[in-house]
């Protein structure tokens, strides 16, 4: 029972971290050009996603 008391918050925190990471990626425009992202991996240079 006592383990649950901290395991559940830990699980929720990790999950929330995942969701916020995803939302951040979405807001920063990383899903705007999925086809392009798949191809750009073949290009040999520094490259930052555009906002």
């Amino acid at each position: 029972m006592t383990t649950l008391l901290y395991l559940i918050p830990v699980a929720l925190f990790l999950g929330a971290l995942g969701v916020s990471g995803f939302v951040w990626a979405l807001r920063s425009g990383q899903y705007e050009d999925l086809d392009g992202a798949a191809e750009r991996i073949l290009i040999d240079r520094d490259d930052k996603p555009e906002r």
Partner: protein
Amino acid sequence: MSCCAPGAEMALDLVNTGSVLPSSQEIRLASRSLGDDLHQTDLSVPTVHCAGCIQTIETALGKLDRVESARVNLSTKRVSVRWRGDEVPPFVVALGRLGYQAHLFPSEVGDKDRTLSDLIRAVAVAGFAAGNIMLLSVSVWSGAEGATRDLFHWVSALIAIPALAFAGGIFFRSAWNALRHGRMNMDVPIAVGVSLAYAMSLYETINHGDHAYFDASVSLLFFLLIGRTLDHVMRERARTAVKGLSQLAAHGAMVLRSDGARDYLPVGEIEPGMRLLIAAGERIPVDGKIIQGTSDLDCSLASGESTPKNVAPGEAVQAGVLNLTGPLTIEATAAAKDSFLAEMVRLMEAAEGGRAHYRRIADRVSALYAPVVHLTAFATFLGWMAVTGDWHRAITIAIAVLIITCPCALGLAVPIVQVVAARRLFENGIMVKDGSAMERLATIDTAVFDKTGTLTLGQPRLVNASSIDPAMLAVAGDMATHSRHPFSKAIAGFAHPGGQYKFDAVTEHPGFGIEATGAGSTWRLGRRGWAGWRARTGGEGKHGGTVLTKDGFIVATFDFEDALRADAKAAIGQLSHAGVSVEMLSGDTAGACGEVAEMLGVKDFVPCLLPSGKVERIETLAKDGHKVLMVGDGLNDTPALSAAHVSIAPATAADIGRNAADFVFLRESLLAVPLALDVSRKAGHLIRQNIAIAIVYNAVAVPIAILGHATPLLAAIAMSASSVLVIGNALRLHGFGANATLQVIQKVGRSAVSYSA
């Protein structure tokens, strides 16, 4: 040039022979200021399609003067260029030199798809909440009791609150909107079910009850949001692709003021009475009258007639036609909103009424579904109240009924099939505007084709090249590269410019032909009467008689013919085989139509039709109970495209035509039409199967719930199983599509061979 971009070399030729490039004023008009002297221009480049293209374009544009950055978006096939200064850097020309044809694309502020990011965010939150609640619920089902169970229920309740508020908001808003307007949609039972389930579960938790439905209400949202997102992605993807294709309408024109000043004005600000300068290669922006200059006009967009029309001062011109050979000064006789283009839009809007009655399968099912679900749940509640008198138990069971009939299988059934089908079609070069288009296409029994530009390519092709002296063909080819006339392009496409003759001067005589002087002789390529002034051959040939002359004597004659679109005959054969009757409508003469009809094996055709005539013909067919598919490309077909039950246009069609059409095919082959029909019919079949699965599932699950045996575990398993079944069924379309792709690839391979040969 890179590996890919088939036809990129051809595009290069087009640029050399002067295809329509937007002027720098036009680019400036379409670009948007980012402040701080920085501008952004969005270009649509339909031929970009691999890493090589991205790199070539970004490096080349990045090297240009004053270009800050260039970024290719492969999904939407767009390039956005940021540049500084007053003068527009020559990026369109640079792209042309690389072999990519670029078109202006109006920058939209807030271009990003808000709804999609909202939906995706909602899916993420609902998924996170559903996963965690499920985890806790499994512990409860497997025997957690007392304080542990209550703790789990409380944690679930806490997780569910933000999920319902955030992810459920989409459904609550839509349901509220529908109810406020006295309508019913599928979101109403979802909103009622989810909120009732939550309230009931909270009540149970507070009173230390055994069962709570938090998991059911949240995972219901999760599944439904997946379905909704898929639906949205499909529609939006095709829409941006259609928007991104070349834009044919003029953005503006050079206006000549009375004091001699020249101004470049956007098309909306042009008023009747203004004098416009139209250079060769520009489109005429508004209806007008020619006051100066002679030229040839390509009216194919407006009338469907592919042979250019010779015009002189005093004649009226329509908006949208392309000025081919000489500069013109016209006086505007109508503002843009009163022009021929606008008239077509009005005709089109008027014709669209017939299609507005169509309701999507999902809507039709949910219209029946929602009242039935509510009535069943309500009847269950009344029944249990009457039998046991225990209101708590009656409500619990009624909620179980609402939840177990959850339309998530139904919510997924339609969009998932349509997404898979749209993907198949996209891979075969066909774009679908929205899911209802596929549903409508599956029901057609008559196909109506436009002739010029649809069954034929709408471009003249040299047919007697083999009987012409190669040396003369080379001379003609050299001369032809100096003109934009369709006949010149046809000759230039056939000849291998040898360059043996060094011409001193080449001049184009609008409406007549090209004159070149070199090595003491005068060469003329053009009309028989003008070019062969010393030849006494008399009458003109069948196709207006285009000849090459040396010092007035004819040395070669050219015959042109409009080429049939690839696979036109095969496509029509396949359509007839699929039980669709084929008809041809055209604005062209009966003779020309008969010839094409005979070649293709089309029995019914109606020639000499005006745009309104095509609409009338389609309406007559519809009145006789036929479901009509219209395939057409011209501006004159646009009202008919809107009037038909469903419509398909080639990518070469007028912008407005592509917008009116439900499907757009990007490749030359007309086999796209039977393929789209086939995929749509298969998709329709799978959708009906999926709906049947959902109904069978309900027929089994609902009685169990009504009798009060539905535990949350059972409800969750049944719900997930039905959804997985529906998705699995939809993926069966995949296998079918793969075969079709293979066939098309083989075809493309073969035609590529014949090109290079």
